């Protein structure tokens, strides 16, 4: 069975959940071979094995993570040439999509991005125009490269050998042209990553101020979820930009999405419409968000949300 390369998404050795989702998807397409870039594999190997990595190609050279994107692309291109895999899967994060795109240019291969599912033959499923259309696409030439949206495919364990093989690549000068001189890690706190969280609670215009976002945070914390914000809220400076859910922000696909004081403009819906269960609290009964919900309450969020938080905490 042909290999399917899975680029491991990790931060300093901590494997992102999307990697396990990619390994799960890769098992339908061939034999998963994880590609590890940078240091820190020791603590992560077990997890990759648990989710079906038959092999792990390890490129630990620090040079590969000292420059923007291009080194990972050259490594993957070399692995494609050497191992002739059936295809390559990456996470459809900002950087993952860039890796997919550059690799497609390098290999002159077709690329599918931000798919919510991938089936045998590397047929990708896309949810486009804010979830209004489901489209299937496939690659016509080259080695299929597919970037998969985090949280879209359920990760399932299926233990495999995870046999390590050290690999190295000689980088071109062009790959070393955008140098990362400093990494700035911003306080993440205890909450899960927005794009990986099973539960996301988002606040919008109705929240009214930065201080009031505490209501959203309290509800998210009661559910062990992540906090998101609509563009209205981030533009107003009530919550940091990186938590914006929507067309120009993050796309999330959690098991449960709770929209608080968000009207549900298309801009926002594009970023959350593939959530499995949707709940909304809004004082306007005509708010478009109610078209999407499984359960909605028309009411004052300052009454309803704290009561919900209290009720959840009571039931724990």
């Amino acid at each position, binding site marked *: 069975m042909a290999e399917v390369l899975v680029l491991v998404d990790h931060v300093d050795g901590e494997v*992102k959940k999307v990697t396990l989702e990619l390994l799960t998807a890769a098992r339908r397409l061939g034999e998963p071979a994880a590609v590890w870039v940078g240091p820190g594999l020791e603590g992560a190997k077990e997890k990759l094995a648990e989710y079906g990595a038959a092999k792990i190609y390890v490129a630990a050279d620090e040079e590969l993570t000292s420059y*923007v994107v291009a080194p990972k692309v050259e490594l993957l291109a070399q692995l494609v040439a050497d191992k002739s895999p059936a295809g390559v899967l990456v996470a459809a*994060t*900002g950087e993952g*999509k860039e890796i*997919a*795109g*550059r690799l*497609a*240019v*390098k290999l*002159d*291969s*077709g*690329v*599918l*991005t*931000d798919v919510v599912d991938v089936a045998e033959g590397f047929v990708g499923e896309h949810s486009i*125009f804010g*979830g*209004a*259309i*489901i*489209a*299937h*696409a*496939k*690659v*016509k*030439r*080259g080695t299929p490269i597919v970037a998969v949206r985090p949280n879209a495919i359920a990760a399932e364990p299926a233990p495999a050998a995870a046999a390590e093989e050290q690999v190295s690549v000689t980088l071109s000068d*062009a790959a070393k*042209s*955008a*140098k*990362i*001189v400093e990494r*700035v890690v*911003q306080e*993440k706190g205890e909450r899960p*990553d927005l794009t990986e969280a099973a539960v996301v609670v988002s606040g919008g215009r109705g929240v009214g101020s930065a201080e009031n976002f505490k209501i959203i945070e309290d509800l998210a914390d009661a559910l062990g979820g992540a906090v998101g914000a609509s563009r209205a809220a981030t533009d107003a400076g009530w919550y940091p*930009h990186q938590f914006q859910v929507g*067309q*120009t922000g993050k796309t999330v696909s959690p098991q449960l999405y709770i929209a608080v004081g968000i009207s549900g403009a*298309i801009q926002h819906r*594009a970023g959350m419409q593939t959530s499995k269960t949707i709940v909304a609290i809004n004082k306007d009964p005509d708010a478009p968000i109610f078209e*999407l919900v*499984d*359960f*909605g*309450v028309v*009411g004052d969020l300052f*009454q*309803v949300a*704290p*009561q*919900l938080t*209290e009720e*959840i905490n009571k039931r*724990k």
Partner: protein
Amino acid sequence: MNIVVCVKQVPDTESPRKLKSDDNTLDRGAADGVINELDEYAIEEALLLKEAHGGEVTVLTMGPEKATDSIRKALAMGADKAVHLVDDALAGSDALGTSYAIQQVLGRIGFDLVICGSESTDARTGMLPAMLAERLGVPQLTLSSKVEIDGSTIRVQRLTDYGYDKVEAALPAVVSVVEKINEPRYPSFKGIMAAKKKPVETLSAADAGIEADKVGLAGAASEVVDATEAPPRAKGQIVTDEGDGGVKIAEFLASKKFI
């Protein structure tokens, strides 16, 4: 400094967007065209850099005839001139074909800096700026929330999942910007009037030296095999708060085993 801003005209997010039934490409006639929102931030950043360092800002777009609307807006904001790559042979190009076509034009017109929005609101692939950097063999300074130029050195802050990276490179380079970077200006009346006199060069694929078999639907390396309207979500339950709205949601969440 010669700055080229890549601009895409996209269907207005607020109007109904659909795919054509015959070839599953975007039906550009079905919706009003507007300038891709993130590209306005790219234009603004180019104008700010020009104001600080001098030079010229050229708008480059690939798209049908009516993409001139977006060109006019960019010129009204303050760009100096525009190049419009327009050819039926380009219709249906995928990101690979599009990046190739734009590379060909950039090779002809030259640049010190290319600035793009980080993604378009229609296809949302987020790949084009990185693909351009790969094709042009220049530094990729994408997903930038801050750009500084100091002589021939360019420094950006690149947004990451964990915060940001400080990245440094030598010009020429490709930059993509996120909306955090600035606040795009509105065209002034004077700007709108001035835009009418600014030069717009129209290029065909052949003019730009683009090989026809590498672009368009036929040159695409991927294809849409089917597209259907998503089934509408089952109508949910909506209640009006009578003092127990929070409790009602909790009961719903409990019924779904979330709590």
